[in-house]
């Protein structure tokens, strides 16, 4: 039943943009039909997903498919269902937001194309998470990856957008190449391309190679540092609801792939878990450090995706280590933490990207240092961003705390219990996670403060207006979900139990509700929230007759101006310097040379170290070295025929 519902969702989502493509450029009917179809798809997906999470034995939907090695096999097992739910919730909200954000009448030239490709991305993702055949999986994967290229390059008249799009295309091609190799190895080990055929524990020397290829292929999609190079540009330059979908859902497909492939191995070597924890720590710490250095709001959010993928990888690594050590508690805590964080990050990151999109829509700029004081003109958007910011920092009373607590508990148990050498991973990752939490607070206070608080820093905010209802409603739903998981943890987290059990291949020895203090955390969150409300009401009543309409005191300084405020760059300056060994910030030099110095300008910038200092120079060097090979390739058919003749003659002579 739920398989058919997912098929319906795939068809509805994939076809959602067709009406818009067929219709004229000006009509608004196409966009409404697309949003409606997306909501219908989301409804089907949600029902199917929750049925898969709660239901018993999942059914397998099969059909023959005349493709070599291919077979039409779909299944909604609990692990797939988790991702189906996530896709089906966020994709319709994004398309509703798009009605206001990218209205057809404002963007007649590319609106229809954007909606069509958006639907294809969603269809591809739904297909790949339920596919049970390698060829079908790759079809879904490629549909998602290529349609995502089209959505990223919506504004392809801009140079930055084109560059981000091509970079994404190169990266995703490389990732797919790795996946082809990985499935090839699995085929070599088992003789089949069906997922079922792999579900026996495969003990072959190829297992390590499969894991490395999965790490490359899926890690590239997920944006694990140092494979994240495509991510910041693509997220920053896509329309904001597409960024929300990509950051909230699309990169999680890499996590799904990693979870699916690692579930095949009953006894993974310990180095798998160590590798994932190590990569997770690097991604989390450097992701948030790079985010601190950004002054483009959407780029900042994009680097936070790298950070959160790191936290998810730490959880997955703990689960793998638990499996290697034969400790069920570590498996349950690590995997539940990783999967819940996958959900959570989807919710709050989509919320943050949507509210950032409203800011961009209202002011026309993503530059933090040109914004400020927007919470007056856009109070609801400011509140939405604040909820997302508190949630992503893992602070009570919201959802981020629950998943981070699960991961922390896994790490502390790794150090505390009998775990041989694996304690080192816990001893490294727990303080790193604390560092990440503190850095995330620094970064989001900076982002929230410079955009919404204080005084406007430029004229960009003059005409700013609150977002429309179709843009605010999705943000409201996402914020409510953040509160729901934070305050309702004892109800939500046990939903993950079947997924954890299906990953580990055995029912949970101890239910998740007993492994982690879910009830206590929910009580803690609720009491903090209630106490803040009470005390806040008291203070508001107490200060009702406050003297207003005075300037900031500022120690009595007579003429403070908005340009004297701390900017996002100055706020993060000390931290960026502490991390300068990795960030390598660039700043123009300012030096006073004479008594009456002329006007001066100052710029600072944090480039992506991996992309701008390693990969691009490396490619350029390779281009120079290998350039002489072009001598052979002249583009002349005669010459190529000559090569063929020469080769044949050489072969004849040699034999």
């Amino acid at each position, binding site marked *: 039943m739920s398989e058919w519902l997912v098929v319906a969702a795939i068809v509805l989502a994939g076809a959602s943009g067709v009406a818009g493509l067929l219709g004229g450029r000006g009509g608004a009917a196409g966009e409404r039909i697309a949003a409606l179809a997306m909501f219908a798809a989301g409804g089907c997906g949600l029902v199917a997903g929750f049925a898969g999470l709660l239901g018993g034995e999942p059914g397998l939907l099969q059909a023959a498919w005349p493709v070599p090695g291919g077979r039409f096999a779909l299944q909604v097992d609990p692990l797939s269902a988790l991702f189906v739910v996530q896709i089906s919730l966020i994709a319709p909200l994004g398309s509703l937001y798009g009605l206001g954000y990218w209205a057809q009448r404002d963007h007649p030239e590319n609106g229809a194309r954007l909606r069509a490709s958006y639907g294809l991305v969603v269809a591809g993702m739904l297909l790949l998470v339920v596919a049970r055949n390698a060829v079908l999986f790759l079809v879904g994967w490629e549909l998602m990856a290529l349609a995502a290229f089209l959505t990223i390059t919506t504004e392809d008249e801009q140079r930055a957008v084109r560059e981000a799009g091509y970079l994404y295309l190169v990266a995703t091609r490389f990732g797919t190449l790795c996946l082809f190799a990985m499935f090839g190895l699995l085929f070599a080990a088992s003789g089949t391309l069906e997922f079922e055929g792999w579900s026996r524990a495969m003990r072959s020397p190829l297992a390590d190679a499969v894991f490395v290829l999965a790490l490359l292929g899926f890690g590239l999609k997920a944006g694990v540092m140092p494979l994240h190079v495509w991510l910041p540009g693509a997220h920053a330059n896509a329309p904001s609801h597409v960024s929300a979908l990509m950051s909230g859902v699309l990169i999680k497909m890499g996590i799904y792939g990693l979870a699916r492939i690692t579930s095949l191995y009953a006894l993974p070597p310990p180095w798998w878990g160590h590798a994932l924890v190590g990569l997770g720590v690097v991604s989390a710490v450097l992701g948030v450090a790079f985010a601190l250095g950004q002054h483009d709001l959407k780029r900042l959010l994009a680097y936070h995706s790298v950070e959160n993928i790191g936290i998810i990888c730490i959880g997955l690594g703990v689960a793998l280590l638990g499996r290697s050590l034969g400790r069920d508690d570590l498996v349950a805590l690590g995997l539940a933490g990783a999967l819940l964080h996958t959900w959570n990050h989807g919710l709050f990151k989509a919320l943050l990207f949507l509210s950032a999109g409203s800011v961009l829509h209202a002011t026309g700029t993503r530059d933090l240092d040109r914004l400020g004081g927007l919470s007056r003109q856009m109070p609801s958007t400011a509140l939405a961003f*604040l909820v997302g910011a*508190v949630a992503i920092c893992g602070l009570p009373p919201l959802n981020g705390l629950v998943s981070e607590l699960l991961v922390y508990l896994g790490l502390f148990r790794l150090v*505390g219990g009998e775990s041989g050498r694996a304690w080192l991973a816990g001893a490294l990752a727990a303080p790193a996670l604390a560092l990440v939490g503190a850095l995330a*607070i*620094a970064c989001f206070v900076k982002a929230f*403060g410079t955009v919404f608080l204080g005084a406007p820093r430029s004229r960009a905010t003059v005409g700013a207006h609150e977002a429309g209802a179709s843009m605010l409603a999705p943000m409201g739903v996402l914020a409510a979900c953040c509160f729901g998981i934070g305050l309702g943890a004892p109800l939500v987290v046990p939903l993950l139990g079947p997924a954890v059990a299906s990953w580990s291949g055995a029912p949970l020895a101890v239910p998740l509700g007993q492994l982690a203090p879910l009830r206590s955390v929910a009580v803690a969150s609720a009491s903090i929230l209630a106490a*803040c409300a009470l005390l806040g009401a008291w203070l508001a009543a*107490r200060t009702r007759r406050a003297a207003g309409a005075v300037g*900031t005191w500022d120690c009595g300084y007579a003429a403070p101006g908005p340009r004297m405020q701390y900017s996002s760059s100055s706020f993060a300056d000390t931290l960026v310097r502490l991390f300068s060994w990795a960030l390598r910030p660039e700043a123009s030099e300012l030096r006073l040379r004479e008594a009456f110095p002329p006007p001066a300008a100052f710029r600072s910038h944090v480039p992506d170290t991996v992309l701008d200092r390693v990969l691009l120079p490396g490619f350029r060097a390779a281009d120079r070295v290998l350039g002489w090979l072009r001598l052979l390739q002249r583009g002349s058919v005669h010459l190529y025929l000559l090569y063929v003749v020469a080769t044949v003659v050489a072969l004849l002579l040699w034999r």
Partner: protein
Amino acid sequence: MPIVHSVIHVGLVLVLPPLLLGVINKTKALFAGRVGPPWLQAYYDLLKLLRKGSVFSRTTTWVFRAGPVVALVTGLFAALLLPLGGHAAPFGFEGDFVVLVYALGLGRFFTVAAALDTGSAFEGKGGAREVTFSCLAEPALFLGLLVLARASGSLSLGGMLGPEVLGAWASDGAPLAAVLVSLMVVLLVENSRIPFDDPNTHLELTMIHEVMVLDHGGPALGLIHYAAAVKLFVFAALVVGVAVPLGTADPWLAWLGFTAALLALAVVVGVIESIMARLRLLQVPTLLVAACLLSAFGIVLLAREWT
């Protein structure tokens, strides 16, 4: 009986914190050869501030008023998670230390956001320093907690700071000593004490915590001062829990011993403030990294037994 102890716990948390400030200031006055303010001066200040009117800058929004509220609530909440003097906390569970640190993080988030809400360069500067130094203090704190978790075999503060610590001192004295020093550094930096920050200075450019709250006045400022005292109490109780592990043989004596240890710690903080100068801001990260390394050594010392 446990109800009585919970009531005492809540009472101590609500009443005692400003006294710590009084003890610190008396100690400093003693070193300077002054009489100093009365022991209860902090209470008088609070009462005076709560009675006053308020002035709010036209730049500010509701976030400015939320800062003090959230800071106080999260501080009090954290104090309820800590076991005091060997008595179990009123609210304790596995992993409560994570919730404690993240609750304080929520308070920091809103305090700094309130500072940025004024649109003043001074307060932005204070906020930037606050979040920067916390970034280095938090790994040190978690490394310390890792050592305590391993040494006491427990994943809740009730065990980490409970009677088990006494046994841990006997078997793993060196790691615990390292952690104690590291936690002391964390106490000083998180509460903006000398050598990291000077709570008495009136030169805005050098301050961290005080400069963030320059524009608050009246009841809001009262809440901030109270919240700062509660935060000092939380970290002091953490340090006392490690340094003076008290059993519950005589529960009433344990309360007395805990209070005495807490006040003694306040004297120690006062002595540190009297005999040290404030560090240059650029040297602060170095000291914090040293505190992290100290706790990391604690883990290595513990690990020597089980690899």
